[in-house]
């Protein structure tokens, strides 16, 4: 365990060096935040009754989403891993007493945490200072806030567990670009990254909320503003946990068998 933690620490330290990228990222996130809120505002004003969330809950959702984008963006893969798979650098990982799954999980976790750590505070700060209802509101209650943090953590783990499955698939193919784009695109949509899940028609939404992807960001972001609360919240959390376990098991199996049949490239 210590080795994976030590690796995690090193990667975190490395990630914290990329301040300029963080700055550029932040600018994009402000831009997107304003754009989205502008678009939803037009929609809200044309028919407030048909709006499935409170407007304030939605703006909080959007700002949190932008602030923590690095935690759950689905197409943020670790390209080192794909390179390692295609050029044979994976040799060194396999020549050491480490499990690929734990190692890569730690790596992705560190990468995302360091990216998020460099970005979230300024976005949240500015969003909190914006006039109501365009800014970030305070969480509805302390318990909601704590559960938000908990489910945000679980959502991050689910996102990484999803990436791990893609890495596992990549180990089995010569070129994984297609699968990577396809899966991350679909999952991005299904997780509520593009449109928050409450905006889907009821039947579709019912299904989406049962899928593993809802737990990646839809659940924590809606708990924060109280849009998800009470029994439905409990159900969502249990589901989040169950899917996390399933994803981890699936990824670990894939990588375990990948270790056995790795086609190490190059010589």
């Amino acid at each position: 365990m210590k080795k994976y933690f030590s690796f995690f620490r090193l990667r975190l330290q490395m990630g914290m060096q990329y301040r300029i990228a963080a700055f550029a990222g932040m600018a994009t996130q402000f831009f997107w935040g304003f754009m989205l809120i502008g678009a939803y505002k037009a929609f809200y004003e044309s028919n407030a009754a048909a709006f499935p969330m409170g407007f304030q809950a939605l703006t909080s959702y959007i700002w949190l989403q932008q602030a923590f984008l690095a935690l759950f963006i689905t197409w943020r893969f670790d390209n080192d891993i794909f390179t390692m798979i295609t050029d044979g650098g994976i040799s060194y990982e396999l020549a050491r007493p480490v499990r690929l799954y734990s190692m890569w999980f730690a790596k992705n976790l560190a990468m995302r945490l360091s990216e998020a750590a460099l970005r979230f505070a300024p976005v949240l700060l500015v969003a909190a200072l914006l006039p109501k209802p365009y800014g970030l509101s305070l969480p509805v209650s302390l318990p909601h806030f704590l559960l938000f943090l908990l489910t945000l953590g679980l959502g991050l783990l689910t996102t990484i567990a999803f990436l791990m499955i893609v890495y596992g698939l990549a180990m089995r193919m010569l070129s994984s670009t297609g699968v990577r784009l396809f899966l991350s695109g679909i999952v991005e949509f299904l997780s509520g990254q593009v449109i928050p899940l409450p905006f889907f028609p009821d039947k579709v939404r019912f299904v989406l909320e049962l899928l593993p992807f809802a737990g990646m960001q839809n659940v924590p972001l809606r708990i924060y503003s109280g849009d998800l609360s009470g029994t439905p919240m409990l159900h969502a959390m249990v589901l989040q946990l169950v899917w996390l376990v399933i994803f981890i098991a699936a990824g670990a199996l894939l990588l375990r068998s990948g270790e056995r049949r790795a086609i190490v490239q190059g010589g």
Partner: protein
Amino acid sequence: MIHMQNVVKTYRVARRDSGAKAAFFALFHRKYDLVRALDGLSFDIDAGEIVALLGPNGAGKSTAIKILSGILYPDSGAVECGGFSPARDRMRYTREIGVVFGQRTQLYWDVPVGDSYGLLQDIYDVPEAEFKRNLSELTELLDLKELLRTPARQLSLGQRMRCELAASLLHSPRILFLDEPTIGLDAVSKLAVRQFVKVLNEEKKTTIILTTHDMQDVEALSRRVLMIGKGKLLLDGTLQDIRRDGESLDESLVDFYQGIEGFDGKEE
């Protein structure tokens, strides 16, 4: 110590003609060719030996190293190293070995070399005292003092190779695999690497298996050479078995390679 018997390893290679049309059809129907990289390779190596694996490009040397270091599973045949089955016992076996691939790096690009070493200490669970002892010894022998605080990406090839060697030895492995450790190095760096490997073998009795295309490496280091061609063992002997009167070692080697059945002098 090391035992390989009748080891076969085939790679599946997707082949298609170049061009858009061929690429399109390959989406639906992939054709695979089988490349037999090792074709019944057998040899034994005793503890404390230095052995050089020789052979033309594509002979199967790197494949043999990968199988011996637990990275690849053989298709068939028996492999045993230091009481382990390398790939099957990978998690325990890899504690006992060190590996250097001359063409790749195991150091983390963005952090000082010393930080990579710290991570390796945790990966191999090396006790603090042993780690300190090994590191100071290696620092001295390989002249690393100035390099430990440099990020790996700023090292020259020769400096990097010295750092790689140290990285693979911090956990006091019993067996060291070196796949082309002198590739691309200048004369001075090559000498340093050879000198170091020799000392390591003499003083620590580390078993060393290396591949190289540099005959001077072999002359300086190994009494025993294993010549591999087309995945088979062609010769188990010494350089004297290859050398011909009136020719340089390189010339003799060319003669030897050209004598390999079906050898066309090109990589496959």
